[in-house]
């Protein structure tokens, strides 16, 4: 009998994360963001982390006090980020990350978003490096290897393997097969493919193995190692307004699914 992938809590799922590892955090503009796993890792306290994500915080639909990468940064757990955004996108915005970066307490690697995704896809696909046209002719390409194919210049990019991927999904079965909903998919399956260990926060009750039709599986359970069901608020974090969560919970209790 194989060991169950279902963990009783986020704390239990992140308890053994060592210092000095590289962790990918999925999600895009809150959707699919592993909010609860950020919170658990901030509590757990692993240090020397390299954090890979689209940006260093969530979006506006997340509650002000919800944990994001900023919780890890404020805890001095992060030594480096690899992101498509390492500065605010609006003059009025202020990132917790910026004050650590500007004072030299955190290092950063700024990567075009498509290159970031493809570097992880490559890592999860046994491809050590690839050439891309993105960033050719820019400051990011200075001093780096380029090559001409069919008369066009491309930049060499290396795969980005992860020790851990922290992601969020809509449905999971006990084997770890996942389904995402709408734009929740984003970086999540790619990060899981690139990681040695993938930990998933799951929105719906975890289903028995085989309950998701094989044709409907978005990410095979072979990439997934630990599953935790997100509890209802306030214990679990949901990127929804309270009224919507209440309505959704009522629907679930009524067996609307």
């Amino acid at each position, binding site marked *: 009998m194989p060991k169950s992938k279902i963990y009783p809590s986020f704390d239990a799922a992140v308890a053994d994360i060592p210092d000095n590892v590289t962790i990918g955090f999925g999600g*895009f*503009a*809150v*959707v699919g963001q592993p909010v609860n796993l950020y919170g658990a890792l901030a509590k757990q306290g692993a240090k020397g982390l390299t954090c890979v994500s689209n940006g260093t915080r969530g*979006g*506006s*639909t997340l509650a002000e006090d919800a944990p994001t990468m900023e919780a890890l940064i404020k805890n001095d757990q992060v030594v480096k980020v690899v992101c*498509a*955004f*390492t*500065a*605010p*996108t609006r003059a009025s915005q202020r990132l917790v990350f*910026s004050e650590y*970066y*500007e004072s030299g307490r955190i290092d*950063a690697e*700024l*990567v*075009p*978003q*498509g*290159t970031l*995704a*493809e570097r*992880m*896809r490559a890592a999860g696909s046994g491809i050590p490096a690839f050439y*891309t*046209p*993105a*960033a*050719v*002719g*820019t*400051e*990011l390409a200075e001093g780096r290897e380029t090559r001409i194919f069919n008369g066009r210049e491309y930049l060499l990019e290396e795969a980005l393997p992860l020790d851990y991927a922290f992601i969020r999904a*809509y449905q999971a079965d006990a084997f770890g097969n996942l389904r*995402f*909903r*709408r*734009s*929740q*998919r*984003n*970086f*999540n*399956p*790619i990060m899981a493919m690139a990681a040695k260990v993938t930990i998933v926060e799951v929105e719906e009750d975890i289903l028995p193995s085989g309950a998701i039709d094989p044709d409907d599986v*978005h990410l095979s359970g072979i990439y997934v190692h630990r599953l935790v069901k997100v509890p209802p608020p306030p214990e679990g974090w949901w*990127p*929804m307004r309270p009224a*919507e969560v209440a309505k959704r919970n009522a629907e679930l209790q009524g067996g609307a699914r």
Partner: protein
Amino acid sequence: MSDAKGLTRQQMCDRLAMEFEDGWIVNLGIGIPTLCSNCDFGDRQIIFHSENGVVGYGPLTAPGREDLHLVNAGGQHVTMNPGSAIVHHADAFGMIRSGRIDVTVLGAYEVAENGDFANWKMGGQKGGGIGGAMDLAACAKHVFVAMEQTTRRGGPRLVERCAIPVTAKGVVDLVITNYGLFAITPEGMALKEIAPDVSVDEVKATTGCNLIIPSEVPPVRLRG
């Protein structure tokens, strides 16, 4: 907005959207360009693609009707048109790099007369916000820019050469500002249309490069 004169942001986007052809796959950057998904396309089918893998999204969702699992690349809650599909991030960028995107509309800090543009890093800033702009700028069939005519301090954004780090070189086709519509041509930057309450002298005074200006500059075409 640095200058209330000229076109509104929605008018700027309405004008660019007139250039979208039936069946085009269109990617909109954050900021002003997102307004292009609210335009009336008549009987043209326009397929909006976003970096987070939503292919075929529609107008912004009415307040209170948001699906919290569904946002565009700007993080705005959107609707999905019939025929939409969801892909993951690597596939969404595979579509971009393989040349499937007919046009990307991006915001910018500066556009140069040779088609270079800069939109990811302010001068002297540590770090930057690239998002998907470098992939899109390098690979979309057309690159349109929507931005204000001048900076907050009144300096030009249309320039001879970009002073801040570029996003891509020689890629911009068309620029809309609140002052008018500009095309990047092999001969340089050309003023194609002008906002109704703006004079040619005002355009010249706020532009940092030579402009090719016809003897009669038509007004910016606006709907209604």
